[in-house]
């Protein structure tokens, strides 16, 4: 038995895969923060649309989905994110190949999983639309409350 303090790149190089907990909410609803387990292997070829890429943003590791391969890199977005990122090819060093959601083991080549990934990417415009509507409603309520409070102050 061996216990390692890891740097993910080193673990992948040495063991051929990194197996560890998920951290963060950017890949919800597929991966839940600190509940699920990811299996990431070194990138050996150019990633395809729907692959989930591992790269670094500063010192932080990021695991997000490839929305579109482009020349020299990828357009990438988390399943629970609304902003695209342009990531250069050489910044991506790993790819998600398997994961455990709750205790169920999924392979990223499973048809069912790929259908989920496709649906998640395709639903982005609809999710974006609802987010904008939600934000407008929130802003409207805030504005209304502000006016209401000012009115109250004046009267008292």
């Amino acid at each position, binding site marked *: *038995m*061996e*216990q*390692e*303090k*890891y740097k993910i790149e080193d*673990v992948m190089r040495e*063991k051929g*895969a*990194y*197996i*560890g*907990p998920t*951290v963060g909410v950017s890949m919800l609803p597929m991966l839940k923060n*600190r*509940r699920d*387990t990811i*299996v990431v292997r070194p990138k050996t070829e150019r990633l395809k649309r729907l692959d989930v890429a591992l790269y670094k943003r500063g010192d932080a590791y990021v695991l997000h989905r490839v929305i579109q391969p482009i020349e020299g890199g990828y357009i990438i977005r988390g399943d629970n994110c609304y902003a695209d990122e342009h990531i250069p090819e050489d910044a991506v060093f790993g790819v998600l190949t*398997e994961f*455990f959601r709750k*205790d169920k*083991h999924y392979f990223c080549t499973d048809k069912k999983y790929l259908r989920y990934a496709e649906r998640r990417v395709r639903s982005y415009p609809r999710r974006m639309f609802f987010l904008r509507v939600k934000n407008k409603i929130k802003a409207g309520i805030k504005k209304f409350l502000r006016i209401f409070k000012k009115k109250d102050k004046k009267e008292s």
Partner: protein
Amino acid sequence: MKIKNGFVLRKVGGESVVVPVGAMSKEFHGMINLNETGALLWNFYTEDHTVEDGVAALLAEYDVEEEIARRDVENFCKVITENGFAE
């Protein structure tokens, strides 16, 4: 001895790896690779058992001499305890 909560055993490509979950993943940054015997003992000690219980569990599973089984269990318990995985 009992292994602390907050770890799960995952089988990936024929290998057994223990990874932290929940709050434990904030404290423990690493992965634990186990061989077949280690995986069996890890599962066994997720509930409170003595060294003797562990030896009996190994003997029930493998055709091995008691002395070797005892050595394996004692080693396992020592490493688990020393690394802070035991309650």
